[in-house]
């Protein structure tokens, strides 16, 4: 978007009205969503305005009247709740992706997670298991490896508010290793990453739900389920439904 079109939008808000679809997106899906936005806007007359955040925060905002048209969550529970609370369009829930959990370190050699048992790292980062599905999955993996209690009591687990912050902890080198989403490091070439076997944790099923009957939002839903949409999601580091 050029400077002048932004200026125009500021001066004449009504010019941009009616065509803008407001989408609340779980932060793990951010980089993929940017590519989807590009492809979608090239095909349709609608424009997308994205708000990224943790699924929990977006849920609380929507419940309290945030004016989004579509919610792409990182789990099934929040869209289901919104549907039950009649905040979402009934029957509009759909699965758009399955998240893939990876153990990632820019510095350590990761061989099938054995590194977790070593003392080679001071901090292990994960998303907050109470708030983020990727955090819950990471916790399940550590419990399976019987490492959760010891790492917790040694205060070596640091918790990011969402998967974006978790990535930031590892990327900045403050945590030597961390559980992140495969989608976050796919652009880095997946170097130093080990994908956790999917049967070690419950599937991270990511669902979307319509919050209004905006035609643009419906068009975006159709696009997400189309061949082109699915290809972009898969390329973004997810398994597709």
């Amino acid at each position, binding site marked *: 978007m050029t400077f002048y079109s932004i200026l125009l939008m500021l001066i004449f808000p009504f010019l941009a009205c009616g065509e803008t679809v407001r989408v609340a997106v779980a932060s793990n899906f951010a980089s993929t969503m940017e590519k989807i936005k590009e492809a979608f806007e090239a095909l349709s007359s609608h424009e997308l305005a994205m708000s990224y955040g943790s699924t929990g925060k977006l849920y609380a905002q929507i419940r309290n009247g945030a004016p989004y048209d579509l919610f792409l969550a990182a789990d099934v529970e929040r869209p289901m709740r919104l549907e039950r609370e009649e905040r979402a369009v009934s029957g509009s829930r759909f699965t758009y992706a399955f998240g893939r959990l990876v153990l990632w370190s820019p510095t350590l050699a990761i061989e099938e997670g054995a590194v977790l048992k070593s003392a080679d790292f001071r*901090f292990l980062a994960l998303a907050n298991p109470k708030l983020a599905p990727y955090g819950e999955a990471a916790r399940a993996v550590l419990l399976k490896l019987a490492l959760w209690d010891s790492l917790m009591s040694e205060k070596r687990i640091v918790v990011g508010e969402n998967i974006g912050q978790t990535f930031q902890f590892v990327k900045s080198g403050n945590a030597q290793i961390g559980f992140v989403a495969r989608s976050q490091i796919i652009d880095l070439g997946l170097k130093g990453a080990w994908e956790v076997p999917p049967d070690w944790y419950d599937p991270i099923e990511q669902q979307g739900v319509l919050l209004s009957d905006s035609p643009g939002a419906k068009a975006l839903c159709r696009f997400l389920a189309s061949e082109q949409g699915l290809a972009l999601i898969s390329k973004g580091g997810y398994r597709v439904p």
Partner: protein
Amino acid sequence: MLNHADMMAWVVTLKLALVTTLILLVLGTPIAWWLSRTHWRYKFVLEALIALPLVLPPTVLGFYLLLTLGPNGPIGGALQWFGGDSLAFTFSGLVVGSVLYSFPFVVQPLQNAFTAVGLRPLEAAATLGASRWDQFWSIVVPMTRPAFLTAMVLGFAHTVGEFGVVLMIGGNIPGETQVLSIAIYEHVEGLEYENAHWLAGGLLLLSFSVLSIVYCLNRRFRGVWI
């Protein structure tokens, strides 16, 4: 009501606010004194620098602290070179962040009060043979006691209410870096509204009591510089 983690969040928060306030007093007093006395041309640069945390969004400050304290950053790198540990995700790291973040709240009231004291009482004391050190402790400190109280309370309260910086550099470790504001945030996000209400209510009560005590005390000090 309050679970174990919530109790620890209280302890960490109060400890952090206390340690931060003490450090701020020790660091802030000489700086405020110097600023109130110097005629240095570029004093305004330092003053602007000290006031920066008032303007910068705390998350911005926190994010760049995270990068600075990290092994690839200047401070974290230097620490590691000397064989020290990284400061991110530790209580000490939070102290560093809080001191930076609350600095103007301590320095500014002190500097204003020191300036208001003026030269005359000090000159009078000097003619009576009081050393500089003696002048400061026997004249300036008693005259500016309300300002010290204000500075301490603002530093303390501001640290208790801190969120963005801790969120960025804390890592949310219970008993180490999980402070009240973070614990409340986590409860809200996790839809545990009742726990959040209890913590927030307690925090409100504490803040209100502390501020009431200060304003009450300040009334008694009225007539002296603030």
